[in-house]
């Protein structure tokens, strides 16, 4: 089937809100080339469980495209339409299983040396949408705080090297009650600007109860991780499935398949879908808590575009064989020092991803070596590439970011 052949019934298997959305915009969808449309449908099919910012993004994109004349739309889509596909792709069920189609499309683009052309088309399209339908800037400057190094008493590692050119390095922060002093103002921000999924706390260990923040914790997902690894092990042990089949299995999982059950609240269902995606789409999130926090922070920034984000790293397990880690074997001890290095890089990536959002120039960023005196702050009023050796507690440090 080709996009021009779409009819309302094509979306009969979609969840209600996704079906309504697709049907409403059918005329535009019909004009999109096959090299692009399944990517859009891959987002739209999960519309019922998308975060508010994602819904807004999808709606803006579709409004932007719908406002174009047929000629303008064809011109905008020309680089995608120029990609050479094949009959197998055209006959795939890209409407109902767009993720599987995208796997096939990726392999095809690589094998036919069209991946560079696809990337160029995608970059151009993304820029067009960002320019034509930008997300509004946040009502208040975004704040991201990253806490690294839990469990490290002494180290020769010098943290924040990649971030120092962009902010002020503090080396005499009083560490007492630092975590509490970070969470309290984060919760206050949530109370002051209450919005669903706008304020987050993601922890590589246990949950830190904080009212008003959307919370995700590696420890709290222990049961889900175990269930997922069991499913993965079953697939491996069967010996009958290749990597693509494994990825397809993961892509089609539902939260309840790994014990993430929801109450009546739609917020619970949305959060469970988000958590499921962290475990099924992230590589290494199932076995290393540091990878989990980094990826969760990335996905939170990309998808939720939050006003407030607190990430706290915890020691990950020591490296074992992949067989052992994928089978959920007990950790062979923890690796706090290695985890500090992981988290240090993760903090840099969090800052980079913060820079991709609207209002980036006004955003506030803080990374702190938990239990120690080193921290680095980036904010419009703070000098870049400088050191500050004045003693202050976390409250005082956060005040500099206000």
């Amino acid at each position, binding site marked *: 089937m080709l996009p021009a052949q779409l009819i309302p019934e094509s979306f009969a298997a979609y969840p209600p809100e996704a079906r309504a959305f697709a049907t409403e915009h059918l005329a535009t969808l019909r004009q999109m080339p096959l090299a692009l449309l399944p990517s859009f449908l891959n987002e739209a099919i999960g519309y019922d469980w998308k975060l508010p910012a994602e819904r807004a993004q999808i709606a803006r994109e579709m409004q932007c495209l719908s406002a174009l004349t047929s000629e303008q739309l064809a011109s905008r889509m020309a680089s995608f339409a120029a990609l050479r596909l094949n009959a197998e792709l055209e006959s795939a069920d890209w409407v109902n299983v767009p993720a599987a189609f995208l796997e096939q499309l990726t392999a095809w683009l690589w*094998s036919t*040396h069209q991946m560079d052309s696809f990337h160029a088309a995608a970059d151009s399209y993304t820029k067009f949408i960002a320019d034509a339908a930008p997300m509004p800037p946040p009502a208040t400057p975004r704040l991201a705080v990253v806490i690294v190094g839990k469990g490290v008493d002494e180290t020769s590692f010098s943290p924040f090297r990649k971030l120092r050119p962009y902010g002020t390095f503090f080396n005499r922060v009083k560490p007492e009650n630092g975590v509490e002093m970070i969470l309290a103002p984060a919760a206050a921000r949530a109370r002051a600007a209450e919005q669903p999924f706008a304020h987050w706390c993601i922890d590589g260990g246990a949950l830190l109860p904080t009212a008003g923040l959307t919370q995700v914790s590696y420890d709290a997902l222990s049961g889900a991780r175990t269930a997922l690894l069991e499913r993965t092990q079953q697939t491996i042990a069967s010996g009958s499935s*290749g990597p693509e089949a494994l990825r397809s299995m993961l892509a089609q999982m539902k939260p309840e398949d790994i014990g993430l059950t929801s109450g009546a609240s739609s917020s619970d269902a949305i959060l469970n879908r988000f958590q499921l995606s962290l475990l099924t789409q992230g590589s*290494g999130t199932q076995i*290393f808590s540091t990878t989990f926090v980094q990826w969760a922070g990335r996905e939170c920034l990309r998808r939720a575009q939050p006003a407030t984000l607190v990430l706290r790293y915890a020691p990950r397990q020591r490296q074992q064989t*992949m067989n*052992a880690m994928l089978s959920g074997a007990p950790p062979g001890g923890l690796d706090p020092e290695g985890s500090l290095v992981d988290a240090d890089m993760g903090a840099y990536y969090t800052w980079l991803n913060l820079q991709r959002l609207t209002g980036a120039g006004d955003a506030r960023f803080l990374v702190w070596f938990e239990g120690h005196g080193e921290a680095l702050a980036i904010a419009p009023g703070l000098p870049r590439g400088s050191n500050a050796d004045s003693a202050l507690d976390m409250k005082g440090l956060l005040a500099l970011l206000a």
Partner: protein
Amino acid sequence: MAAKQGWDRRQFLRTTVGAAAAGRLCGFTPLVAQQLPKGHKAVVVTFGGGARDEETFAPEGQENIPHMLGELIPQGTFFTQVINHGILGHYVATASLATGAYETFNNFALTPPANPTVFEYFRKDLKRPANDAWIVAPSNGFNRIGASDRSGYGPSLGAEVLLPKQLLAAAMAGKAGTRDEDYLHLLRDNYETPLYTSSLAGGQGSGGGSQDAEIEKVAGILKLSLDDFTAHARSLASPDELSVFIARQLMKQLAPSLLWITLHDIDIAHSGAYSLYLDGIRRSDRLCGEIWKAIESDPEYKGRTTMFILPDFGRDSDISPGGNGFQHHRTGDALSRTTWMMVLGPGVRQNAVVDRAVDSLDLVPTLGSLLSFSPTFAKGSPLREVL
């Protein structure tokens, strides 16, 4: 971006190791009148799991590669821009390096390359026996890389493929009195997918009887008793150390003229743990130094061996929005396609840097010129700077 990468490496090498000939190599004349010693050999070391400049040749990464910087680069010629235009999956990319043509098969399929490999060209043209071309490869996914299915070539002309982890796993399975936990750290496997993991029950698709015979055969070739093998393996820290141990045994016992070693520890980066990725780089750096020392201390190799060291490709940049930095090589951006190559050996200019962009496919034609065979179906060009 690719040009910038090459420039950054060049600048760094100039300032750090004093490489002197940069920028003047395009007009090279042969250094040794092409008279290489009789019985010339080649050792190729590839990294399956590229390493980025930030963690290697850029100033902030230099602490991770002391052996390459301090010992190897001063003795060799360094190509700052090696571009891979093919599929960025480790098996298919390594196969492309070995054939000199961009292979297009599914990276995760156990399939042979479509084009003849360097091993087939070498053995066919020079009429070399099977034991003169060997591959030490990291995982089960690589077990078809020794030969293509091209008519006129094929397994009868291919290389012997050794999968040390599979060998160890199989040896362990039949050995009483050993504790699995002493060896499990050597069986870490393909990090792009968990489906190729070795297991202590042995390799995929092998029957018990034929597998035992294969182990005995390899052990006999290596003149290594299973007791010695498993005892030594216990002292090793990683799968790549196991691979280099096996490669050194091959050098001692068979002295193959064409030896290809693929290291893979770096690819732990796919798990997202940056510290483990750095550990892999440091280990690979040390092992490259050890391989060169082994070459230089072995009469069969010393003075007659050219060594090539190159990653199969790079990894995604930190700023590419479609990726997640060092973790993967999915975006196809310039950083993930641009890597480097180091060449050492007789007739190779020392402490030299080549700035021009070369192609990953140039490796096989260069080997062909060096060892005097004709890679008919290879697409690249011989690298004149090292011939």
